[in-house]
């Protein structure tokens, strides 16, 4: 199946980002296609390479980057939501790109299922 994923919460306060990451990874391992992961609301903070969680904690930003590197997953951050929260290309983690909300609509159209992770 072809999935789109929408991540609506930030990487630490909420479980949503971890669940989205685990879902995406599991789907890929099962041979499904991930058309795109789109980051909206505080979800854009998943793409901040300046984040430095304690070393005994998971590093979600790095995990996403690794997923992009290993599986070529398209990780797209909403430009309006990102700029509002101080995220721009200068601090964008590897494997992410910034683009418009139209990319979310396209994911909704192209994917068989758009799976949403938020509160």
């Amino acid at each position: 199946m072809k999935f789109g994923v929408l991540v609506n919460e930030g990487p630490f306060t909420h479980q949503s980002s971890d669940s989205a990451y685990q879902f995406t990874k599991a789907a890929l391992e099962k041979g499904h296609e991930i058309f795109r992961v789109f980051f909206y609301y505080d979800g854009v903070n998943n793409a901040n390479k300046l984040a430095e969680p304690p070393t005994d904690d998971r590093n979600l930003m790095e995990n996403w980057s690794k997923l992009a590197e290993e599986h070529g997953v398209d990780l797209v951050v909403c430009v309006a939501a990102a700029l509002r929260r101080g995220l721009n290309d200068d601090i964008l983690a590897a494997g992410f790109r910034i683009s418009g909300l139209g990319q979310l609509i396209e994911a909704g159209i192209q994917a068989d299922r758009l799976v949403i992770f938020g509160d």
Partner: protein
Amino acid sequence: MSDLPEIPPDDDEDFGTVKKFCYVNRKAPYGTVYALESLEMVLIAAAFDQDVSVVFMDDGVYQIKKDQETDGIGMKNFSKTYRALEGYDVEKLYVSKESMEERNLTTDDFLVDVEVLDRDALSALMAEQEVVITS
């Protein structure tokens, strides 16, 4: 309409396919950013000519309440944008009957025309959608 969120298209993309997008708004208009950024998603879907429905339920019914006054909390009053939805061909607006009644509201309290649906009808509406985005 200077208070409309900036709309779109990065370029003249046309995805060529129309799907049923349903936005389910469940949170109050202020206090969190969900209502405002959800509205931006609604407008983009409309800009890309998708078949858009918008549902207001739980505290989300307050998003379309008349006479919002936000000066005291220093927030932009974006409620007028809901009135502009019609201009973007977003005309399918639904309100949860239970949520409306629990809050002592009637359709006269809303600044846009809505169709009131009970839980079963809303459930049926959502079942026929292809993309459901809840905020």
